[in-house]
């Protein structure tokens, strides 16, 4: 373990355990990547989108996308639970990315991550970024391995690259928090499914392994699952139940997928965490027993605020990591001021051709 990463872990450990929170440092490799990638674009034109926040679509979708066969659900399968207060620390990690506009070759992008820890009744956060960088065909691929990103097979595009950079920061944050925390409940956005180039199994297995060793329970909560039963989301299975409950759907789902390349490292549940709240897909580490998973969920709902069925810690992490329109303006103006990037409004082709008779979103601007 390098001196740098030791410092980071120490910082996060202090952030988690000490009062007041101390922000951790970002790995030097991230900063170097950002600086080098954007410095190489100095003086270039940036064609900005008329409304860049329109692209803020969920990017953390499941790797699986399938309509499943599903038998009937017996009431006995539904695990009802009562929230139990606990002293276990709760931590949540979330990240987000945004494309700020198009460069001559690629895009200018930004990345932000947030770690939130529930300490008693107080939420403490460390927010990382925004980190500004460029991505494109001639990007600095030699920097990618240093970010933990594997080399590409085939054609890459900015969306894929952006997702990988984001995953790289997210994994670093998850790993850092998991190493720093003991006997905690760690919430992440999405699922524990791995095995895609964006989300290699080895990294996820490593993360889960670290969590187990430090007796942390990793809980992945997905707002937008692609797992569907006859065109309805699997979360519809619990829509009629009003009390907090869990439904283990793992076996039914797993048997419908082949072993490779997608790997379900998590045990899949549909869960309703609060009375009359929304149901979500919830993944637990497969190697943790169902009893421990249920106990973890009881402790989470008894400790954190679970308004509308979604843990507050994760909600705050999400809010802190997202980009607002003014963030975008600030980053764009910084790119101009510090890196001499010249901003130009992107020509809306549809609008240019059809004016008010276009049908795309750009006709609104």
């Amino acid at each position: 373990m390098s001196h740098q990463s030791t410092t980071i872990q120490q910082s996060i450990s202090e952030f988690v355990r000490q009062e007041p929170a101390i922000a951790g440092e970002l790995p030097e490799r991230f900063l170097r990547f950002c600086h080098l990638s954007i410095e190489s674009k100095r003086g270039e034109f940036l064609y900005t989108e008329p409304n860049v926040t329109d692209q803020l679509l969920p990017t953390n979708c499941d790797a699986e996308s399938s309509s499943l066969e599903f038998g009937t659900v017996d009431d006995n399968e539904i695990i009802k639970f009562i929230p139990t207060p606990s002293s276990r620390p709760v931590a949540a990690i979330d990240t987000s990315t945004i494309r700020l506009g198009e460069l001559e070759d690629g895009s200018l992008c930004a990345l932000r991550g947030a770690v939130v820890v529930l300490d008693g009744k107080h939420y403490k956060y460390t927010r990382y970024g925004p980190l500004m960088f460029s991505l494109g065909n001639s990007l600095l691929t030699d920097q990618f391995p240093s970010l933990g990103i594997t080399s590409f097979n085939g054609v890459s595009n900015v969306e894929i690259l952006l997702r990988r950079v984001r995953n790289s920061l997210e994994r670093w944050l998850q790993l850092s928090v998991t190493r720093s925390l003991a006997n905690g409940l760690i919430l992440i956005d999405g699922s524990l499914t791995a095995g895609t180039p964006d989300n290699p199994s080895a990294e996820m297995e490593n993360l889960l392994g670290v969590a187990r060793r430090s007796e942390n329970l990793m809980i992945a909560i997905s707002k937008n699952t692609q797992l569907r039963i006859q065109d309805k989301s699997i979360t519809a299975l619990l829509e009629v139940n009003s009390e907090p409950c869990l439904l283990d759907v793992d076996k039914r789902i797993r048997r419908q997928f082949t072993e490779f390349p997608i790997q379900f490292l998590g045990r899949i549940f549909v869960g309703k965490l609060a009375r009359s709240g929304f149901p979500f897909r919830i993944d637990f580490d497969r190697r943790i027993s169902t009893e421990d998973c249920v106990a973890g969920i009881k402790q989470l709902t008894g400790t954190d605020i679970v308004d509308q069925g979604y843990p507050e810690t994760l909600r705050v992490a999400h809010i802190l990591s997202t980009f607002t329109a003014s963030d975008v303006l600030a980053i764009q103006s910084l790119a101009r001021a510090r890196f001499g990037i010249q901003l130009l409004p992107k020509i809306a082709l549809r609008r240019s051709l059809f004016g008010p008779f276009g049908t795309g979103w750009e006709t609104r601007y």
Partner: protein
Amino acid sequence: MKILKKEGDSIQLLCFPDEDVEKGDYILITDGIKDRALISQIIDVQYANIPGILEDLLRDGISESSLTGEDVDPFRVSSQLEVLKDTRLLIAKIRGAMQNNRMSRDVSWLPSRIRARVEVMSPNLLTRELSNKHAFELGSTRRSAVIASDLSALDGRLNIITGRKGTGKSHLSRLLVTTLVKHGAPVVVLDVNGEYVNLGRATGSRESSTKIVPLIPGVNLRFSLNEIGLSTFLGILVHALSLPDNSSRVFARIWRQLELQNSLRMDTLGTAIANFDCHESIKDALQARFNTLDDSGIFTNDPKAALSLDEVFRTHGSGVALVINMKNQPSTLRRITVELFISKLTDLLSSHNLKGLFLFAEEAHLYLRETYWDDIITRMRHLGLFTTFITNQPDTIEGGIYRQADNIFLFNFSNEHDLEIVSKVAKLDGETIRMIVRELPPQRCLAVGDLVGNFPMVINVRPLEVQTLGATRYFFQDQIAAA
């Protein structure tokens, strides 16, 4: 600053946090290529509507309550965000233009939004086309830049000074009075609160300038009947003391008889009224009015004790201010005094014994009869009587006078009704008045008219170096001073 939008005579500018501007400031928008510039005045300062600002503020709000933490922000984007959040939107009114470095009223063009240079303008550029034969310092801008003007812009003009109590109206009025006197002008002040009597004394001095002449009706302000004449005396009886027509005709006969007998004095007038052969009711009416006038002490039989206005103005050819101190006087006596004075002044001006005269009338509704209002802004103006009305009740001045006023000095008003009245000023749009006047601090006014080159200006009125009375008196003076 950057141009955002122009609509009609309004222009919107984006102003960044490091740029120091305020309501009332003038902005010069120079289009380098067209070699001309727009002159605009800020009438309101708002927050710029930055996209996503609501989300940002909500997020900050959450952070302030139950959430604490730190940002690891290696690019220091937050500093840019702070700039964005504090970016202001300036609403400005286009007041004029400059072409080849000269003032122009051609504002029918648009400056380039990209190339235009937008900067704060010096007030001296706005008043530089005023004559400077009788230049004086009116005050300063918020940035302490001197606002100079010229007294010729008061000459032949009708002026109004209005504002809430305790905002500095009388202070400005005193500044104008002393400046006019210094430049050799004759001034009469109708002073209802005794605020001008010490104008002749420099601060901390016991010596008094001979150019400021305080006059107290019945004490050192007295007239002889011969100097007054029948028409003026009758005017007092009719207008100040409401004498009916029948009685006034009888009085005229009595007056003429005494004139023929060369015995026109107060004592003989009283005797003549008592002995005149007329209906008892008329006699009673005349007797009652005569007693009122006699008791006032404003008339004297001693020619040496009587004030000769003609002589006063002749001996003070290098400028004088006659301050008629009407403090603590009954309203009837005030009306009598003002009738007498204005009548005499009109005679002097009609006979060209006086070239012109500046009249400062504090709270004129307390003593000026209704027919005088129109007279002052029409006939008397042509005779050379140039009036400045000073009031804290703007509705006591007729709307027509606001529309005809050449210079208006507006101090703070917060009352909607008062703002509505003063927004009838012809030389300025109501929106500007409402936006600026509402927030003026004490001693600062919005000046509109010839005195400021017809560019409305927010002015910190220059301090006076003379003793003043009439500043609002406080019981808890020490606390106020400490505050």
